[in-house]
């Protein structure tokens, strides 16, 4: 027996933290950290729902697995982009003034 509200609250906190990270970070990699947190929040909601509601398809767990996989693919491409960015500009500052460079 478990109170499903607790994981949900955690998911909300994770999502909020992620959004904050996406919005407030200037470092491209750290912004991606925020994105990861948002995805984690989504996964948590899925798992919780899957665990407390009977589902013959096991959608909660399966979809979380999918999300994790997609997140992996995403982060690979995103980091590649960051690397390309770094090579091209010498920094990964998202709010870099154009005049400074």
């Amino acid at each position, binding site marked *: 027996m478990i109170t499903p509200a607790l994981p949900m609250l955690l998911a909300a906190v994770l999502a909020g*933290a992620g959004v904050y990270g996406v919005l407030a970070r200037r470092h491209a990699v750290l912004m991606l950290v925020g994105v990861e947190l948002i995805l984690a929040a989504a996964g948590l909601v899925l798992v919780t729902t899957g665990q*407390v509601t009977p589902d013959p398809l096991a959608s909660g767990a*399966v979809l979380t697995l*999918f999300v994790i996989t997609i997140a*992996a693919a995403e982060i690979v491409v995103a980091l590649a982009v960051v690397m*390309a960015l770094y090579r091209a500009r010498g920094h990964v500052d998202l709010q870099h003034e154009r005049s400074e460079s």
Partner: protein
Amino acid sequence: MSGLDLLFLAVGLLTAASAVLAVTSRVVLHAALWLVVALGGLAGCYLVLGAELVALVQLLIYVGGVVVLVLFALMLTRHGNAPVQASAGHRVLAGVVAAGLTVLLGVTLTAVVGWTRVPVTGPDSTDIGTAIFGTWVWPFELLSLLLLLALVAAVAVARGAGSVEDVGAATEEEP
């Protein structure tokens, strides 16, 4: 409050705290490490919720793969004393939006599931395996295609830099 609830509370608080630190820490490397803790904690949460397979995969891919990648990327893009955070005003705005989102999500999600305790009736690993290779087999295969595409794309985007090729090589093992 049952034992599971207490356990979840403990792991969840840890996760939440490390997640907040991961997005607020001024030191780049610390932030990445806090992410490791947060994701690990999340795997713990999954365990508490009874989803062992998901927890394991989470550990394996996130903590084992993704975070390593992130750390590599951080190292490779280190750039003296580059600013990490946005200006104060901006941070406040971002905080307000994030807080609003938290409240909104928290209220709606808890409103949906309610505060009553329910038994954990999730599928076990066998069920999940059957489901993946039964009902979900096409999306699953599509996902492998996606991973392949991501791999190729990553190579294409980052071509020319040896370090990025490493990144591409690392992804091969993941699925």
